[in-house]
């Protein structure tokens, strides 16, 4: 997602003034429930003694709070919210928007900042109480049990896991030694992918008994007992032909 976008400065050019309004969480939650049209309420702007008063009134149909399954009747989100207006003093605030296609455009400059406050009444207090209760609940709870749990950790003749393991082993049977050349081919193709292998991994890849595999490895490879790749097997230098990290090839003698 590299956004090397040319910023669309049309918004700034037109000096679109916008308001940055801080809205409480519950209110924004209610707004999200709005219909497609998006009407959530009304703003009233008044002028009183030289000062402007802005107030927001939430639509009635959005006042229902359906958190925690509470009934709508009991608790309502307050409807009236006067705005507190500030001037944008020490900062230059601009708004830019980002589309899905990573196109950035500067929408406008913020001319006023506002905070949406609810009118404090009993209803609001109840709402707040509810919120606080919710938030103080711990995420994890200790619960005391009356009786000990007896469903697990019963003594078992053989655990399920073990039983499965043994079955699997039986079905697969012991690993059979394949032809030497076949095994060599398998090994070389494996070493084409990685340089260092654990013997266990090789056993898993080739499905050969360990002793047989070790014998073959001793012939074509070396064992690193020290160094960065500890206790790993790698091919002998004459057998390997790794080029850069990207491509490599091995060849048999």
């Amino acid at each position, binding site marked *: 997602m590299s*956004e090397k976008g040319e910023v669309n400065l049309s918004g700034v050019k037109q000096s679109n003034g916008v308001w940055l309004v801080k809205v409480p969480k519950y209110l924004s939650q209610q707004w999200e429930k709005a219909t497609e049209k998006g009407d959530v309420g009304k703003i009233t702007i008044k002028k009183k003694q030289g000062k402007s008063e802005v107030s927001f009134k939430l639509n009635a149909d959005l006042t229902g709070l359906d958190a925690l399954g509470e009934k709508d009747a009991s608790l309502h989100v307050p409807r009236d919210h006067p705005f507190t207006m500030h001037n944008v003093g020490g900062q230059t605030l601009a708004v830019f928007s980002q589309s899905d296609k990573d196109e950035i455009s500067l929408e406008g400059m913020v001319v006023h900042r506002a905070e949406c406050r609810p009118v404090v009444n009993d209803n609001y207090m109840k709402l707040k109480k509810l919120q606080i209760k919710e938030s103080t609940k711990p995420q994890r709870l200790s619960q005391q049990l009356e009786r000990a749990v007896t469903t697990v950790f019963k003594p078992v003749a053989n655990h399920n896991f073990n039983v499965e393991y043994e079955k699997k082993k039986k079905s697969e049977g012991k690993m059979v030694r394949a032809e030497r050349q076949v095994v060599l081919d398998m090994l070389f193709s494996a070493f084409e992918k990685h340089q260092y292998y654990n013997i266990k991994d090789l056993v898993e890849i080739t499905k050969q008994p360990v002793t047989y595999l070790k014998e073959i490895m001793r012939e074509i490879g070396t064992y690193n007992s020290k160094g960065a790749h500890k206790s790993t097997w790698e091919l002998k230098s004459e057998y390997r032909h790794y080029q850069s990290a990207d491509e490599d090839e091995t060849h048999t003698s």
Partner: protein
Amino acid sequence: MVGHHRTTEGTSLRNAVSHRTLKKTAHRNTPVQTFLWGSSSSSGTEYIVRVPKTPLKSTILCINSGDKVACSTWTQARMERDMSARRIYGEEETTEGAAGSEFGKKQREEARRKKFGIVTKEFKVEDQPWILKVNGKAGKRFKGIKKGGVTENASYYIFTQCPDGAFEAFPVHGWYNFMPVAKHRTLTAEEAEEEWGRRNKVVNHFSIMLQRRLREQERGEDDDDEGEKAGKKKKKGGGGRGGDLRIHDLEDDLEMSSDDSHSSGEDGESKSKAKKEVGKGKGKKKKKKGSEHEALEDSDDGDYEGLEVDYMSDESSSEEEMEKGKPVKAEEHPKGIDEMSESEEESEEEKQNEEETKEEDEEDDGKKTPVQSEKKKKKADSSGESESSDDSDIEGETASALFMKKRTPPKRGGRGSAGSSRTGSRPGTPSIDSGSTSSTLRAAASKLEQGKRQTGSATDTPAAKRLKMEPNSQSPAPSGKSTPQPASGKSTPSSSDVQLTEEAVRRYLIRKPMTTKDLLKKFQTKRTGLSNEQTVNVLAQISRGSTQSVKMSTTRCIFTSQSNWTEGVVTRITVNMSLCQT
């Protein structure tokens, strides 16, 4: 319910008037004006607020007012994410190929991390800073860092007024604080720390960046074009110093070029010297170190403790000035020698020898040469003043152990007085002050070298012999050879014949232990009629033979006729002996 329900939903109709009014008020610091609609006489107007569901994500771009940014002046802007942190986080992506890789390494690493509870932060592109470039290449650059916690407790909405008068509220998803990015070069954190430590001393702050630039140029000198360098210089020209004058002491270099961990003071000096040459070649480099503007700390007292100072010269003993002092001293000594030597012929006849050997001397260290010249000068003294040992004693490591002596003013005084006592025609001032021709210096130097060598060869087989002159020596015994000098050892008398015998040696040694060289001085070729080599051989024999009277301290290489004597042994003996042995 407060509020004047004057308007209904139909107020969504807005005429252009109010819209224009809104535009006018879209300036900072202007109060919100009443939006009168139509003929409403009430003081309030209502607008519908809509929260449209838009796919656009709005973000706040916040720039500090102090940076004085006027967005309206931007002609064009580009904004992109700053992905420089990706390589830090994505470091796990090592070589994908087979070479050097292990089978199942990734899983193992992951299991290991889980076991230890190491949680690595993921690299989220949305959280990366923005880089905003305004007005193209020459314009400003801003870096915007995401402000955390904006959307956690409260939501921000952007209210815009639509043409129809209704407000539309868009939620804000992020907040980025933008800061201008400095285009000029800055110091790194380590460099800044260093400079902070020196802030009280450094007065000239231009030189800080100048130094850094020069250092960078040094590193990239092979790769850089000349044009680049010229460009850099021009940039610096505003703050640089004019001229190629560089006045710097060693201390300056040590302090100013202490930047890199690798560069020592000397490196810096050499670097700067190299730069100087380069600069001079280009004729444009303005790198005056401005040392005269720097207030440097005084050197501690202990700085020069270990240095051996040639007390014959008036100059102080800095390493640099040693070199400077050398030619000066060189000049001074021969003059002194001239004056001090009794016979002119002696100096002349030895000049040739000395000149030959002088070349060899000059190959030695700068430090050694003054030492040697000193010694030679003394050697050339026909009087064989022992005070000369005092002077050469000054130079530390290179000083001949033979000339071990306390560095006291009496040396000078002694010297002067010796001179006066001896010849009487000598000027009162020590010989140092007077200048001299280089030829005589060379002569003196070579003579000293010769004598040293011979001494060295003589003392080769026996252990290195070192004689120490006590500061207050008693007057020599009735050898009649030396006249007592206040602060010096024996001084040979003017013109008595001396036989190089064991008794003579013993007599000398009775007074105090002496080094072979001093003994040699006593038995000068002229007096004994022997050549230098012969003298040395005889001395050697004597020292070996007369074990009762002459004891040699092998460990400390001291000749003494008495078993008990206090020493102030200098371990530099061995060094010097190796020098003597050619």
